[in-house]
């Protein structure tokens, strides 16, 4: 039994559903149903153990050092949500099978639905809060797909975008909040967090963390002032609305409040923030629901109001209030799912959701009407139905919470007003739709839906009645265990009787029922009042649209200002920005520029070399318009750089720099052939002056920064590498051992980048046509001579020698300066020389230009070496080595790192050759068609 496999079942089922839909429309529905059943079948065997009071925790370490693990949790609260998600999900699957029309793609719908279901299960069952957040974001994304299911409708796209913007922004805030929470508690695991409530509440960062977490919860569960996305999400197909509003999505927000209740609640900040939002939402939702003429709109605002109710209960903070909150979560899920389905049936069979047109449907669909009326009465809180029980608990909690406060009578009063409006809109749902005269020009003649479409509604309405009439026998055990999950301790005794005698809660219920009836009776003047005065002023959507369009305008203005399509302009901004940041950082840091490290003495030779380099640089800059000259000069600079490496104890670097210098110059020479050889100055004088100032400032900054570093003492982190290079890595060249062993994974990444760059260049060369020049800058014509015989012969003679040197460098690399990188470069230089000296035709026959297999082989060898250590139970890329004794040769050492280095070698050779040879081959191509000479070989 395994919690993760439940979630995997659902996600894998999502793919399966998408796939089977090609075999027929209804296959997708069948598979989706079976998948949901399979997930339920895995969950149910664990239920008895949870009822016995156990908490299942499954844990797989992934990245323990930063608290990122894969872990799942099943306690009462998680189980309640998993059952709601899967149970109501199953009914939705059945219902949607009849709801979707022949035009709608079933596979896509069910695939999205299962994906969403999997994400919701992930939220409910997560033990690690970061993991919870990942599933949280997944629900935002998948609900976006579901809401925009009818992509061709503008309102669907708008509604989906709004939902994504609001819940996505909330998710970002939640990420911050959860990270802070994890840092405060010292762990991201819920079992630790839930037990460190006192420590969390006493922490100085408690308030900012709370605000961020609440932003996440409030946006998701559509609390005021973020409530407006929910009514706009009504553009989704009705099964989606039924699912999102009852058991999922918006319930994720209240789930989070319930989940973190022991860790966060019990402070004045919690009470006022959560309570304020809850009360406002309760009132706003209830009042506005009455004025919505759209059936689904009414239900949407009622959902908002009920979520406010649940939030308010958690804000009150007493254990009994939390029990009532959990109870209302259950009840609301049941009656709201059935109401949405009923609304969907009415829409489906009558062709409209407008209550000004829908009247007197009782005659046409009495069965559906009966179901909808019972569910609606449950929503209003009529006795003998489930909504009554939790609502009365809510009234009692609100009254007792209010009695502790100054002006405390306001709370029960406000709650009663919300109750009055709840009754009023429930009555409207019943009376306006099923009675109140005759239908007004409906597109269809209403009739009862197919038998099976009603079944989910019937089951849910039966539950409303069962829970309402026999609460102790039905819901009590589940409620107890779920409340224990919320509180993380035994819940207080509560009595789910229908009759508690005449008390304040009953009086409030009666006032709400009677008042609701009265409000509904005077609805017509109220509608007029709303349409004339309230509606034009209270447009949350307009505010949202305004903010969004302002944001987009700002973004595009910023882009236009910075990205003018000119690289020069952007680079000046970039360099200037870097300068400002650097100077600002230094000035604010306030430290001295120089440190007190002992300096090395200056010697004349070094001074000489430095002068050559500086003048070389200057000469490159001065002569950059005479490109050939500049290229030769930059070679000088590169050589001096490698001398610097020699001087300051970097033999490996010197070798690398030297060989890279050679291939770079060859590369630039080859490229220069296709570019203008020179050009005249074209930048205006002011721009050159500006660039000069920027360049000099940047140079000064770099010099000062280098000086600041070089003059300070430091403690190296390399002692470990130095100490373990021989005993751990089996090599005495520490730089090479770091590359192939200690940081082998980095090197693997780097050779991958190298191979990708080579392939990218190869791809760019395709279909490139550049005419080569027929004469050089001095006007001398192109030379068609064969390659000089002396040079060709010597190059051929030198090849074995050069290859032997590279083998030597490769083999000794683990212990002395050398290694795969350098040997690869030396080999590449030796082979390139053949192309230069012997021409492409001759060399192509012997050395194919296509080095792709070599690249692939190198990467494969390096990766397989890494994977090989798994076979022996070691982490990826663990190296091992041994000393062997062979007759005549003596003792020698063999390390697996050598095989890795071989991979590096092959990738380097392959990439360099690929780049240079293909660029070189373009030369031939650029001349052959133009000249028409065939005898040049």
């Amino acid at each position, binding site marked *: 039994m395994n919690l993760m496999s439940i979630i995997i079942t659902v996600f894998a089922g999502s793919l399966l559903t998408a796939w089977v839909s090609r075999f027929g429309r209804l296959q997708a529905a069948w598979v989706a149903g079976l998948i949901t059943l399979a997930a339920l079948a895995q969950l149910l065997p664990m239920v008895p153990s949870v009822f016995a009071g156990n908490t299942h925790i499954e844990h797989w370490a992934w990245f323990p050092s930063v608290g990122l693990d894969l872990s799942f949790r099943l306690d009462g609260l998680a189980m309640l949500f998993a059952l709601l998600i899967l149970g109501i999900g199953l009914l939705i699957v059945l219902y949607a099978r009849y709801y979707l029309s022949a035009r709608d793609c079933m596979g896509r719908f069910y695939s999205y639905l299962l994906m969403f279901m999997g994400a919701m299960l992930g939220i409910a069952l997560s033990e690690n809060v970061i993991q919870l957040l990942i599933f949280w974001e997944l629900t935002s994304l998948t609900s976006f797909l579901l809401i925009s299911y009818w992509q061709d409708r503008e309102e669907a796209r708008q509604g989906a975008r709004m939902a994504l913007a609001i819940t996505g922004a909330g998710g970002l805030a939640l990420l911050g909040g959860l990270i802070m929470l994890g840092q405060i508690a010292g762990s991201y695991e819920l079992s630790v967090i839930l037990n460190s409530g006192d420590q969390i509440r006493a922490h100085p960062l408690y308030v900012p963390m709370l605000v961020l977490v609440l932003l996440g919860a409030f946006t998701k569960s559509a609390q005021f002032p973020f409530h407006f996305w929910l009514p706009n999400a009504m553009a989704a197909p009705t099964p989606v609305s039924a699912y999102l509003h009852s058991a999922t999505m918006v319930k994720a927000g209240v789930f989070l409040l319930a989940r973190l209740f022991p860790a966060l609640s019990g402070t004045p900040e919690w009470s006022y923030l959560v309570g304020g939002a809850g009360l406002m939402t309760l009132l706003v939702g209830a009042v506005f629901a009455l004025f919505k003429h759209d059936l689904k709109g009414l239900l949407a605002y009622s959902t908002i109001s009920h979520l406010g109710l649940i939030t308010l209960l958690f804000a009150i903070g007493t254990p009994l209030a939390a029990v009532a909150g959990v109870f209302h979560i259950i009840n609301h899920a049941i009656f709201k799912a059935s109401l949405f389905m009923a609304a969907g049936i009415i829409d489906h069979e009558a062709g409209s959701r407008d209550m000004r047109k829908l009247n007197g449907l009782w005659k046409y669909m009495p069965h559906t009407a009966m179901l909808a009326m019972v569910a609606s009465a449950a929503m209003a809180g009529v006795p003998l139905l489930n909504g009554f029980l939790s609502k009365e608990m809510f009234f009692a909690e609100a009254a007792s919470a209010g009695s502790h406060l100054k002006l405390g009578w306001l709370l029960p009063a406000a709650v009663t007003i919300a109750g009055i409006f709840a009754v009023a809109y429930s009555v409207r749902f019943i009376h306006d739709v099923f009675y109140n005269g005759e239908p007004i020009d409906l597109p269809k003649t209403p009739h009862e839906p197919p038998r099976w479409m009603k079944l989910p509604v019937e089951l849910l309405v039966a539950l409303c009645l069962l829970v309402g009439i026999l609460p102790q026998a039905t819901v009590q055990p589940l409620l107890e265990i779920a409340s224990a999950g919320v509180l993380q301790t035994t819940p207080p005794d509560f009595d789910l009787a229908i009759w508690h005698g005449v008390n304040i809660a009953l009086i409030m219920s009666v006032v709400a029922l009677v008042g609701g009836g009265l409000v509904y009776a005077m609805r017509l003047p109220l509608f007029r009042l709303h349409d004339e005065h309230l509606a034009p002023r209270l447009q949350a959507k307009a505010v949202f649209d305004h903010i969004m369009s302002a944001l987009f305008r700002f973004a595009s203005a910023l882009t236009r200002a910075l990205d003018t399509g000119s690289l020069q302009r952007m680079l000046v901004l970039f360099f200037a920005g870097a300068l400002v940041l650097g100077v600002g950082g230094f000035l604010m840091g306030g430290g001295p520029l120089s440190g007190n490290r002992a300096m090395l003495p200056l010697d004349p030779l070094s001074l000489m070399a430095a002068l050559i380099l500086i003048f070389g640089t200057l000469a490159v800059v001065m002569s950059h318009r005479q490109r050939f000259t500049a290229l030769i000069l930059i070679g000088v600079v590169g050589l001096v750089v490698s001398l610097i490496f020699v001087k300051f104890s970097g033999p490996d670097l010197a070798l690398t720099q030297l060989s890279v210098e050679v291939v770079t110059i060859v590369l630039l020479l080859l490229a220069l052939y296709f*570019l203008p050889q020179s050009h005249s100055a074209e930048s205006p004088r002011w721009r050159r002056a500006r660039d000069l100032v920027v360049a000099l400032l940047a140079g000064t900054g770099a010099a000062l920064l280098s000086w600041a570093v070089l003059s300070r003492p430091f403690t190296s982190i390399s002692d470990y590498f130095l100490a373990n290079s021989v005993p751990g890595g089996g090599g005495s060249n520490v730089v090479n051992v770091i590359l192939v062993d200690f940081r082998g994974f980095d090197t693997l990444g780097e050779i991958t980048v190298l191979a990708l760059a080579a392939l990218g260049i190869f791809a760019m060369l395709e279909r490139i046509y550049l005419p080569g020049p027929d004469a050089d800058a001095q006007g001398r014509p192109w030379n068609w001579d064969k390659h000089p015989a002396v040079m060709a012969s010597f190059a051929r003679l030198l090849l074995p020698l050069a290859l032997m040197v590279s083998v030597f460098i490769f083999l000794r690399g683990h212990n002395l*300066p050398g290694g795969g990188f350098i040997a690869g470069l030396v080999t590449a230089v030796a082979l390139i020389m053949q192309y230069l000296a012997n021409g492409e035709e001759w060399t192509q026959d012997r050395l194919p230009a296509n080095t792709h297999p070599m690249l692939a082989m190198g990467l494969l060898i390096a990766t397989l070496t890494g994977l090989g250590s798994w076979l022996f139970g070691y982490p990826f890329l663990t190296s091992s080595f041994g000393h062997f004794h062979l007759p005549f040769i003596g003792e020698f050492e063999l390390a697996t790192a050598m095989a890795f280095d071989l991979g590096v070698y092959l990738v380097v050779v392959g990439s360099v050759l690929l780049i240079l040879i293909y660029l070189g081959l373009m030369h031939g191509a650029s001349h052959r068609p133009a000249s028409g000479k065939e005898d040049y070989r």
Partner: protein
Amino acid sequence: MEILLSVVIGALTAGGVYLALRGRTFAVVLGLTLLSYAVNLFLFAMGRLTIGEPPVIGSSESYTDPLPQALVLTAIVIGFAMTAFVIMLALKARSVLGSDHVDGRDES
């Protein structure tokens, strides 16, 4: 000696930045090459300057910091790949747009 290397890094940076701000692709490639020399030397200098103490076990009494060297070694090779990529981009741009100006069009 430390002052000398600082000046060298500064000079390479200044030259690199100036050339990177030019309008023609070849000059920009030269500038990037100079800049990568400067960056490599700067990274190398993070291990401070020592003479005659290469990080090869057994070759001397104490050793210089090997870590910056390992970083710079791969940076040099990747730097070559980057230079090659940029120059190829320049060739491609010239082939498609008919100009070797960095913005793909000659200034009016």
